[in-house]
C-alpha cells in the first residue's frame, strides 16, 4: 500500500474543510508574555545565584583562614590542642563546601539562559 494510493482527493477536501484553527486571538501575545516573564525571572535568579556563590566562596575561605589562624595562635579548648581541633573543623567545612557547591552548580545550570 503506497502513500499516494491512500491519498484520495475526497478525504483531502474534507480534512481541509474540517481543519481547526486557533480560536484565541490573544494566544500569541500570551505566550510571548510568558516567555518574557520566564526569561526575566531566569536572569534575576541567575544573577542572584552568582552573587550568593561569590559570598559563599568568601565565607568558606574566611572559615578556613580563621581555623588555620586559630590552630597556630589559639589557646587550648577544654584541654584540646588547637592543632588537633582544627583538623575535624576543616573536614566539616570541606564536606559542607562540596555539598553546597554541587547544589549551586546544578541551580546555575538550570537557570543559565
Amino acid at each position, binding site marked *: 500500500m503506497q502513500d499516494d494510493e491512500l*491519498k484520495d482527493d475526497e*478525504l483531502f477536501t474534507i480534512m481541509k474543510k*474540517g481543519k481547526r484553527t486557533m480560536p484565541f486571538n490573544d494566544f*500569541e501575545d500570551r*505566550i510571548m508574555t510568558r*516567555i518574557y516573564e520566564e526569561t526575566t525571572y531566569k536572569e534575576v535568579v541567575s544573577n542572584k545565584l552568582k552573587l550568593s556563590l561569590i559570598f559563599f566562596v568568601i565565607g568558606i575561605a574566611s572559615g578556613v583562614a580563621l581555623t588555620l589562624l586559630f590552630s597556630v595562635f589559639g589557646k587550648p579548648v577544654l584541654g584540646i590542642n588547637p592543632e588537633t581541633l582544627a583538623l575535624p573543623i576543616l573536614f566539616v567545612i570541606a564536606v559542607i563546601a562540596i555539598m553546597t557547591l554541587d547544589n549551586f552548580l546544578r541551580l546555575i545550570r538550570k537557570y543559565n*539562559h
Partner: protein
Amino acid sequence: MEDTYIRKILAGDPEAFRYFLKKYQDMAFHVAVSIVKDSYYAEEVVQDAFMKAFRGLKSFNQKAKFKTWFYRIVINESFQRLRKNKREKVSYAPAEEILVLERNPLFLSEEEEQKELIAHALNQLAPKESLVLGLFYLDDYSLDEICNITGWSLSNTKVILHRARKNIRTMLGSTIKSSNE
C-alpha cells in the same frame, strides 16, 4: 530560514520565537484538539508545548526539522493531558455538544454546515485516528514520517489510518457525496 530564528533565540532574542508561534499555532492546535477533543484543553496543551519547545531549543538538533520535533512535543503533551483527564475523569464531550447545538443549523450556510459536520465527525473519532488523518492529509506527511513523529510502528500506523478513513467515511457518507456534486 528557521535556523536563523533558532540562532537568534539562542543568542538571547526571545522575540524571534514569535515566528514559530505564527507559523505553527494553527496546526499545533488542530493536532492537539484532534487528540484531547476540547478547545480549551487543546489551547493549554499548545501553550505548554510552545513553552517546552522554547526551553528545549538548546538541546534541539538543528540538523533535524523543527516542525517534526515540535509536533512530537505537541503530540506527547496532548496524550499526557488525555491520560490526566482520564485519571481525573474529566468530561469534555458535553461542552463540545452544547457548542454544536447552540449554533442553529437554520442560520448556517451549506458550507458552514458541512464544516460543522466534519468537525463534529473528527471529534467523534478516536484520538489516534483523527491525529493520523490530520498528519497524513493536512500536513502531507508520509507514513514513515508519521511513524517517526508518533513512535508507532508502520503496520500500526497503516491500520489506524485505514480505520480512520473507514470511520470518517461512514460518519460523513452524505457529506462526501454532496461535496463531490
